[in-house]
């Protein structure tokens, strides 16, 4: 039993560099994100954090705990934001549905966080209509406190295009890091396009 545990630990250590392989995203070049029809052009360098099982794509400047840009590309009906299976026993996540109103998306994000990362106190602050990636969408702001008790602020832009959800969220500690990083995040958001897809 303990031998097996030790073996597992060794394997994990050996495997971890591959899991955590990051990629530099250079400024001024257009890239497709989240294996989807969405492309963005950042105005500064970012690091892409590779997290294989999830369909979302994660970028950061200083590390995920300090600033995190998440791309959700083409989430279809009955898919969850973070790619959990529907039958998952203990922590079922909510699923996107093409019949949702775009105003249901903030609750989709909030409830995914509650289920996925044990966020018990989270609030959506402001919701307003905007054009996102050339489509009518919303911008909403939110705040939550995870287990580390460091309050986070977030800003999300989302649109539903051809029945699929496209969203970019930026999150950082409310203290300093949100304000410090939001301009770079908004530059990425402003550059986003979602190519028209054939049905």
């Amino acid at each position, binding site marked *: 039993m303990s031998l097996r545990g030790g073996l597992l630990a060794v394997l994990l250590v050996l495997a971890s560099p591959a899991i955590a392989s990051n990629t530099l995203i250079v400024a001024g070049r257009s890239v497709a994100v989240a294996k989807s029809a969405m492309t963005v052009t950042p105005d500064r360098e970012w690091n892409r954090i590779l997290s294989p099982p999830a369909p979302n794509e994660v970028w950061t400047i200083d590390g995920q705990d300090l600033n995190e840009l998440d791309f959700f590309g083409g989430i279809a009906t009955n898919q969850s934001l973070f790619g959990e299976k529907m*039958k998952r*026993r*203990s922590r079922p996540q909510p699923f996107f*549905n093409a*019949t949702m*109103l775009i105003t249901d998306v903030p609750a989709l994000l909030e409830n995914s966080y509650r289920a996925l990362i044990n966020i*018990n106190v989270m609030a959506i602050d402001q*919701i307003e209509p905007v054009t996102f990636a050339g489509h009518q969408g919303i911008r909403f702001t939110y705040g939550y406190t995870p287990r580390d008790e460091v309050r986070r602020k977030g800003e999300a832009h989302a649109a539903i295009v*051809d029945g699929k959800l496209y969203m970019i969220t930026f999150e950082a500690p409310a203290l300093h890091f949100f304000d410090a990083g939001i301009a770079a995040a908004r530059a990425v958001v402003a550059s986003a396009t979602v190519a*028209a897809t054939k049905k």
Partner: protein
Amino acid sequence: MRRALSLILAGLALAASPAAAAEPKPTLPPFSWAYQPVGVDERGLWMEADDLEREFRDSRLLVRDEALNSYIHGVLCRAVGEDRCKGVRLYIIRDPSFNASMAANGMMQINTGLLLRLHSEAELAAAIAHEFGHFELRHTLEAFKRRRRSTDALMWAGITGGRNGANLQLAIIGSFFRFKREEEIAADIRSFEYLAASTYRAAASPAIWERMMAEYEASAAARKLKFRNARRPSFVDSHPTDMQRMVYLKALAAEHGDGGEDGVDGYAKALAAWRPQFLADAIKLNDFGGSEYILAELARSGWTKELLAARGDLYRLRGNPRDLTVAAQAYRDAIAQGATDPAIHRDLGMVLLRSGARADAATALQRYLALRPDAADKTMVALLIDQAGATSGAAVMHAESGAPAVSPGSPANAPPEPASGGSAVAGARALAPANDGSTK
């Protein structure tokens, strides 16, 4: 084998003896006024618990409502007695899972998910007296010592056990969890004895476990998962099963009789200001079956406007076409009963919009803006009103690229599918398995 065993025993004796010799036995109960921990182990545990308590004290997840805190403290005092309760510090944590715990130093944590699921003062008294029982019986200290002994023994069994080492290790692990379960039973019995000696109805406690079993079943059924309440615990369960607890508590109740006070009204009154929040926290966990069960149980004495509003939210979030109908009716009933939260009109409007009832949707959304003119989502809602009023048959703000108006045959006209799954009750459960070493 025999040689291996004797080696292990020798090793254990060697490892245990210096500490055992130095460790004085506490003579006073831990709830004694200004009690100071005795011995290395108890002092260490208290120090760790003190650290943890400082974190809790400053936590953003704490419910700081003084009235609610002092109410619960009052219930504890009525249950276990004034002399015992006065040193206990209470921390109510915003956590929708059903749990409570008590650390070695007399810090009690209660999840809001526990408060939501209880129906009376007597049930609350039983739950927190159970935690107090762990504290009084020094179970955290016992568990700590046992864990140390077990891990020592595990190591020795691994080194010296040879081919039988694995079996020995299994036996050690098994006995560790069996002891934990025995402590839970001891705390249940202690709690029952406290209530039997108090003015509360001691026979109230089995109902808690009956409802928890029903909730897990409802939760699983809504997700089409197989679930059966276990009659006996598995090898590594830290708690007896809900079924066992219900059975032995019922046996105690039958012996003791059914007298005593339930305090249903007092409990409902004390929780009134918070219940909508606690319900919202539970509903947002996507556990449709479990949340529906909680609501139905709370509504046994009638559907109040708060319960109706919560029901509306639950069905709105699942979002099947039939759910939207139920949600709209629940919101309307809540409004008819005098619900005053402006958000209920917005939620009603959204549900009607998704169902295609545009005119009614626009009316409800306008009502929301009239009641809350500077709402944080006012421009969004105003746009929805415009679109709802614009054309008929239009796809409103969803599944549509570019223009807000229509496209016939857009997904708006397609039959909607479930928006969310149900779920099991999240996280640790029920006065239940500890999620860290210092509490239980």
